[in-house]
């Protein structure tokens, strides 16, 4: 069901949503998340970023995260697009779009996929700041966000 893509090119959020729902009459709710590069992180200005990933495992991890979401909620379709390579502030990095009959399922699954993606999908960000290049450190807040879901259902 899920369609997962990893690509250098920009994506068009409207087109992804349209493709998720095209020709369907059973979708009542589409929840979409778009993550973007900010010009500041951890107190430093960020002028550029590059995203590395683990080809093969990345796609597999994203598919598994989507399958887990589909097992927890009633979903009609899921789309995940994650960019890699060089990015600038204002660029979109990731899109997660979830179609469901009802909004509760769509919202919960979209947030779940993002939380799991943040802690389980093998991507790494490197930022260029006035102090030079630096690898972004994982945040404990992301681990906490992901652990909310481990009891099953909403945290």
């Amino acid at each position, binding site marked *: 069901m899920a369609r997962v893509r990893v690509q250098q090119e920009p994506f068009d959020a409207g087109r992804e949503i349209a493709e998720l729902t095209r020709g369907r009459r059973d979708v009542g709710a589409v929840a979409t998340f778009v*993550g973007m590069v900010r010009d500041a992180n951890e107190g430093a200005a960020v002028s550029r970023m590059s*995203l*590395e*990933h*683990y080809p*093969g*495992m990345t796609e*597999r*991890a994203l598919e598994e995260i989507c399958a887990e979401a589909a097992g927890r909620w009633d979903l009609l379709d899921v789309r995940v697009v*994650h960019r890699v390579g060089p990015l600038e502030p204002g660029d979109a*990095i*990731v899109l997660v779009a979830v179609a469901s009959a009802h909004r509760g399922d769509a919202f919960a699954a979209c947030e779940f996929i*993002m939380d799991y*993606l*943040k*802690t*389980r*999908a*093998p*991507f*790494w*960000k*490197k930022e260029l700041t006035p102090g030079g290049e630096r*690898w*972004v*450190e*994982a945040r404990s807040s992301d681990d906490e966000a992901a652990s909310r879901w481990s009891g099953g259902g909403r945290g």
Partner: protein
Amino acid sequence: MVTLLYFASLRERLDCAREEIALPAGTPTVGGVVETLRARDGRWSDAFAPGRAWRVAVNQRMADLATPLKPGDEVAFFPPVTGG
């Protein structure tokens, strides 16, 4: 033999993206590979010192020290992920 892959800051720190090593003797596990790496020079023993935050995947699935290994496996080491 198994293939070891290193990503992101770990790859840079070790100056190594990929290598092949012999499987540890006995019942090979990820833990045995990590012991082999810790026995190398300071750069390597530092990177894999107890308490260091790193993750491991075997054949592209998340794994841990107890995960068993067989010839031809792909073992990847990397820092905690920061995508999204």
